[in-house]
Structure formats: C-alpha cells, structure tokens
C-alpha cells in the first residue's frame, strides 16, 4: 500500500530518461564525478606548478584556460577544484538531510511540545539569510573545509525538517499507518516501513535542489576566503584572486565561474525534472522565499 523507496527512485530515473534537460544535467554530473575523482590525474599540470615566464598568459595550446597571476595553469586548477565543490556539497547536504529528517520525524511523529521546541528552533535558523548565517558560523569556528561543510549543513537543515514534518503529518493520519499503530507495531518500525517510504519523493527532490544551493554557497564562502584554504584551489577563491586582473585577463573570470554555473545548473535541471515526476506541486511561497538566498 505504501510506496517503496526503490519504486520511487526507479520511477524517477525512468522518467528522467525522457526529459532532455535532465539528460543533459545528468551527463554533466557524471562528467563532474569523473573529474572530481580523477581531477588530479586529468590535470595537465600540478595545481601549484608555477610557470615563471608565463604569468597571465591567455589560453593557448600549452595552457588551454591560460595561466593566472602566479603563472599557474588555470585548467588544472579548475579540474582539481571540482572535488572540493562536490565534497562540500555532498557532505553539507548529507548533514542537513540527516539532521533535518531526524528533527522533522520527531516533530511530526510525537507532535506536542517536542514539535513545538524543535520547529521553533528551525524557525529561528530560518530567520537568517542563508549566506549571512553560514559566514557567521565559519567566522567563529575558523575558516576551512570542514567548518564550511558544517555551516552550509546547518543553514539547509530547516528546509529538510519542514519537508519531513509536513510529510509525516499527512502520512500518519492515513489508514495503513493507523492500522499499524493499532496492531501495536513499534514507532521505529512504523516510521521505517511506512512513513519514510512515503516521504521519500519530496526528500529526493529537495536533496537535489539543495545540492545546487549548497555548491553556490560553497563558492560564495570560498570567494570570501572562508572555504578551503590556499594553496588548495577552489572555484570561488580563484574568482576572488583573479578579480583584480579580470579586465586584462578575462580567462581568470570566465572559466572558474563557468564551472560553478554548470555544476549548479546540472543539479537544478535534475532537481526540477525530479520535482515534475515525483512531487508535482506548484512552486510555493515558502520555497520561493527560500529558493536561493
């Protein structure tokens, strides 16, 4: 009677095959995955190899994306930095998913004061503009890869908690859940067998869209010098370092930014396609409020 998560996922994947933007998005994501895993070996040069004679060289056969203000190969740095973006995106959304779903389940299942306390807490986190809160958290914890992940994870937790709670509230009133309760099934079992499969669809959609926003947030944090620290390359940081030279060396601005854009676009395309298949609601006010900043 209840949808099985495998079924949900399979339905989603088969539908994606027939949606050209989603196919393109998936292709970009697969490419990114390869680059993320094998970037170091794909890169023609080391990320910190300096070509002293070749500072700010325009794109050429030697350096397809040109060289930066220190003479480093931009292509190599863009390729290697893919890993950072993906890692931060996946880990931070993983944190948000785990914490958010737990909070949402507890709030929706037990209701009462548990619901009140937890969801008011989520409201509080919701009251901050996304990037501002992430910046504040990183600022106090100290900049770095790990703190960036934690900060972005915290920022995107409330949306998962809300989506989960709403799903739980509607599922728990349905006949099969009330039947399970009446025959004395344990809470954990009911949640695992009946509730989670039924809220899988909105969670999958939210995860895909959150990955896009998380990667944007990571880029913004690293632009501000609050992400992974030099000399490791990050797309946002490359834009920050190149911003002063951009009028003479356009390639410093174009390539890292295009990498961010394509990554985010790919996640958004897949997320939108998933939404159309799994969760075909209209864009709600709450989502639009939260959809980006």
């Amino acid at each position: 009677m209840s949808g099985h998560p495998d079924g949900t996922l399979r339905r989603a994947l088969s539908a994606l095959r027939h949606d050209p933007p989603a196919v393109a998005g998936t292709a970009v994501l697969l490419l990114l995955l390869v680059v993320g895993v094998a970037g170091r070996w794909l890169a023609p040069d080391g990320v910190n190899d300096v070509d002293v004679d070749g500072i700010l060289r325009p794109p050429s056969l030697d350096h397809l994306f040109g060289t930066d203000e220190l003479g480093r190969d931009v292509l190599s740095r863009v390729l290697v930095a893919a890993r950072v973006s993906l890692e931060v995106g996946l880990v931070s959304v993983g944190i948000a998913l785990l914490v958010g779903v737990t909070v949402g389940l507890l709030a929706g299942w037990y209701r009462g004061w548990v619901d009140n306390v937890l969801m008011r807490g989520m409201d509080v986190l919701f009251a901050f503009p996304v990037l501002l809160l992430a910046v504040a958290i990183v600022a106090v914890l100290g900049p770095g890869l790990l703190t960036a992940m934690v900060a972005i994870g915290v920022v995107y937790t409330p949306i998962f908690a809300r989506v989960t709670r709403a799903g739980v509230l509607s599922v728990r009133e349905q006949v099969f859940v009330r039947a399970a309760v009446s025959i004395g099934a344990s809470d954990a079992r009911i949640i695992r067998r009946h509730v989670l499969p039924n809220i899988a669809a909105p969670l999958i959609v939210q995860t895909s869209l959150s990955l896009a926003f998380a990667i944007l947030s990571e880029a913004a944090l690293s632009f501000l010098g609050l992400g992974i620290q030099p000399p490791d390359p990050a797309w946002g940081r490359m834009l920050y370092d190149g911003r002063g030279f951009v009028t003479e060396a356009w390639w410093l601005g174009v390539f890292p930014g295009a990498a961010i854009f394509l990554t985010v676009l790919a996640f958004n395309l897949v997320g939108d396609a998933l939404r159309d298949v799994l969760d075909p609601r209209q864009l709600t006010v709450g989502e639009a409020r939260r959809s980006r900043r």
Partner: protein
Amino acid sequence: MTRFVLRRLLQSVVVLLGVTLVVFLLLQLVPGDPVRVALGTRFDQQTYDALRERSGLDQPLVAQYASYVGHALTGDLGVSFRSGQPVTTIVLERLPATLSLAVTAVLLALLVAFPLGVLSAVRSGSALDHAARVFSQFGVSVPDFWMGIMGILLFAGVLGWLPPSGYVALTEDPAGWASHVLLPAGAVGLVTASILTRFIRSSVLEVLSEDYVRTAEAKGLRSRIVVVRHVLRNALIPVVTVVAVQLASLIGGVIVIEVLFAWPGVGRLTYDAVQARDYPVLQGAVLFVAALFLLMNLLVDVLYARLDPRIGVR
C-alpha cells in the same frame, strides 16, 4: 484581523528571542578567548580587561545573555573590539549603502520579471515562455558574483562605460551613485529577476486555471481586463510577499557583491568584521539583519491579510 496580527507578532517575538540566543552563542563558539583572539598581536592587558568588562564576558553565561538581550532592547549592541565605537552606530552608518543597492536590484529585477513572468504564463508554451524559462533557469543557477565579474569585464573593461567598483552616496552625487550602482545591482538583480520570473509565472498560471477566470472570460471581457482585473489581482498577492522577502534577504545577503564592488554596506561590514575578528560587530550586523528580515516577514503577512479579503475574517 487584529487577532491575526497579534498572533503573528507574538510568533515573531519568540523567534526573535531565539535569534538573539543564536547570535549570542556565536561568540561562545569561538575557540579560546574571543577578546584575546580579537586583539591578537595588539594585546595589552588594559584594553583586554576593558573589553572583557564592557562585553560582560567576565559574568556567568545566563547573566551575560540576559544583559545582551537587555542591552539589545535599548539599541545597545556592544562596542567594536577594534574601534571602540558602538556597534549600532557602525551598522546604521552602513545601512544606506546596502539599502540603496538592494532596492535598486529589486526594482531592476521587477522591471524584467513582472512582464516576463506574466506574459510567459498568459502565453504559456510560446517561444517567449520558453525563453523565459531558459532565462530563469540560467539566473537561478548562476552565482551573482560571477555575473558581477563578467559585468566588470564587459562594461568596465571592454566597453569602458561604467566604473569597475566603488561607491558614491546617493545624497551626494546621484549620477555618480547611479553609475556605480548599475553593475552590482544588475548582477544581483539578474538572479532576483529569475527567481521572481519563475514565481510570477507559476502564480499567474495557477490563477489562470481558476474557475473564476473562466467565468470572467465567459462574460466576454477583453483579455486585457481579464488578466488585469481577475488574474493579476489574485496572482500578485503571493508575489508581493516574495518580492518583500527577496528585498529583505538581499539586505543581509549581498555580502559577496559588496566585497567584489567595494560597496561599503552591511555585507562589506560583516566581511571586514570577520577578517578583523571583530565579533561584536559581526554579531551586531547579523542580529540587525535577522531582525530586519523578521520584521519584513511580519509586515508582509499583515500586508497579505489586507490584500486578501478572505484572511481577515479567519
């Protein structure tokens, strides 16, 4: 209506209290002694003691929080670790720059998003609709600071029409302000425009499928009247709220753009405070923005209730 407003007001106060707690706890998260960290190499015992006392850090945690909230209520958000100036003064000084940028960005965004969103819904499936959807997908996925850099590249570099960065106060030199605000506001506005286009389109589409729109068409009204009187009045009620919330989040969310364009607003202030480990200023800026954000949301809900005659009676 009054009850609705009172209930929302109460909710906002509770959330605001939670916000102050989060902001207060931020300082506790700083590894080690925040004052010592902030002073760094400029450490001297006298300044250290003075700052600790002024910040109330020598008291127990609960007392510290109580006094933080108490002072915040009177508009006292502490003093800067760096300049010793009151944080409230510093934040308020930066507000006009941010406001002028955020408002310009939202206006630019509306200029594009309103006609685009409405037309793409009314002519859904047309070439224009497809273009609008490509545009909004582009805007939602593009980092605004990258658009800023591309804007600098094109309009400051190649064309030389606009200054690459900098700020002139609107009150001092409107023309100079305008030439400086166009690039950052355009970059931010592009992203906002795509969010709003998407939302306006979906809101108008939803109303277009309502029975009362068919009723209006059945009356033989001109399609312009149907759209303006019957569709937009209903579709724009939620849009108003989204516009207001976008504006509110821009006030706190243009950090990166302000850094890129050397725009001396609240975002730039936050960034500088982070760099200088000037925690009271960071806390003050965050609290100020979050409070503003809450206030805007509250106003929006009240406005919503006024615009929609159904809500008032509930």
